[in-house]
């Protein structure tokens, strides 16, 4: 076996590939996060709604998405969903970066399903007596939610949401299977071109780990700074 030599995979060309993959992974994480959060909130509210049809929709979204492996989601979003679209939209999609858009679509749904459950649990974790007490003190419903329930819920929701963001960051690596040129894709390219699997994946591991640790540190900091207040 050749000696471990990081320089062999850090030539200008390979480094360029790896950096572009790293940046695309970050971009994918950020875009998906921004899309998934409102969708997750909407789904959580559906599940908490007093309207039965809304609850069914929320239930179907969460269970339908969460119980299918991410790999299957992405292959479905790339190979099947575009074929169901009208010709004009499909043509537009294929003109643009279909690999990225389909990956973002699949990851958004997948991430939102998990986030929705965290948001729902967080809201439910605030004892109902808090709301009742607020109402007894003369707050209206909205004011009770805004001033009493939600501030407590956010402290409970944010740590698991950060944890879901960490999962999202790692899950972007699966997008390599549909040709999205993120970090894992570029790493495989470098490995093929350099025959340096150990070095390539050492670097890739460090890249994933560094961002993951930053997200973890953020979660720890938040929990220290804004601990859950027991009622």
């Amino acid at each position, binding site marked *: 076996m050749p000696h471990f030599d990081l320089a062999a995979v850090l030539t200008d060309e390979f480094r360029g590939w790896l950096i572009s993959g790293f940046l695309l992974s970050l971009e994918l994480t950020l875009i998906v996060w921004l899309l998934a959060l409102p969708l997750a909130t909407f789904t959580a509210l559906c599940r908490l709604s007093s309207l039965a049809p809304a609850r069914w929709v929320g239930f179907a979204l969460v269970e339908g998405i969460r119980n299918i492996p991410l790999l299957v989601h992405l292959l479905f979003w790339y190979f099947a969903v*575009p074929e169901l679209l009208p010709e004009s939209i499909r043509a537009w999609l*294929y003109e643009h970066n279909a690999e990225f858009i389909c990956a973002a679509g699949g990851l958004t749904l997948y991430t939102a399903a998990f986030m929705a459950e965290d948001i729902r649990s967080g809201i439910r974790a605030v004892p109902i007596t808090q709301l009742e007490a607020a109402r007894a003190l003369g707050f209206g419903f909205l004011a009770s939610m805004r001033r009493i329930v939600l501030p407590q819920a956010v402290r409970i929701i944010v740590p698991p949401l950060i944890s879901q963001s960490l999962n999202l960051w790692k899950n972007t690596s699966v997008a390599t299977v549909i040709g999205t040129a993120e970090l894992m894709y570029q790493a*495989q*390219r470098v490995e093929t071109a350099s025959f340096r699997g150990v070095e390539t994946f050492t670097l890739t591991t460090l890249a994933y780990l560094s961002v993951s640790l930053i997200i973890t540190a953020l979660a720890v900091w938040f929990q220290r700074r804004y601990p859950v207040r027991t009622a």
Partner: protein
Amino acid sequence: MKAIAPVTLAAVLTGLLSMHAAVADQLADIRKKGELVCGVLGTDEPMSFIDARTRTLIGYEVDLCEAVAKKIGVSAKPRQLAVAARIPELQQGRVDILAATLTHTKEREAVVDFSLNTFVTGQRVMVRKDSGITKVAQLAGKKVVTVKGGTQEPNMRKAVPTVEVVTFETAPQAFVALQQRKAIGFVNDEVSLLDAFGKLGPAQKDYVVLTESISVEAIALGLRKNEPALKTLVNDALRELETSGQAEQLFFKWFGPSSRLKYQTRNFKIDSDRI
């Protein structure tokens, strides 16, 4: 250790030289035993494989071996080898020549000699007919798909530096992406590509396999190094096959329209050992 190395080297060299002396004229040895032992793979249809009915080794390379044997005036004896064992078996003298789908590479030239190229294959591109593309160079700035991990992507980029390549875990996935119009070209090894094209059935009319290859892989017979007499004779036999038209016949027998691979044209001649 440093002091010992030259001595060891000298001993090895002496050994090699004496071995070489013992088989100085391999051609004479072959004539004496009356048979030419050809190392073939036997698992690589249609280059060399076992005929299900007769249980004998047949194929393109088996026929080439027979032609060479005929030229020498002996009988041909194909012997099956594992891929990794090909070159060692040749060097150790268990087979006389290799007809084992052996790609002629610069690295291998250090250990074996090569005959003229007996089969030239490569990687090619299938495009959708409505793309209007007829030449590889027209793929500049266009999107093509292929499989991860092989030489397809680097070779495609070498052929057309500005092409956009998207890779998938398997070749069939890339092929589906082409069929779904996610790209305008699909790059793969020629034999696999023609196989995929064959499976399209009536949809073949919508696709074209560009005749140009983006990379060339030359397959040749392998010979022990420093056997000029045998090498000359082998190359003569191959040249005669080409000039008499038999080489062309052999090609179409194993690769032509009536075969599984359905090559419509033969894009090489047995006349060179360039790679």
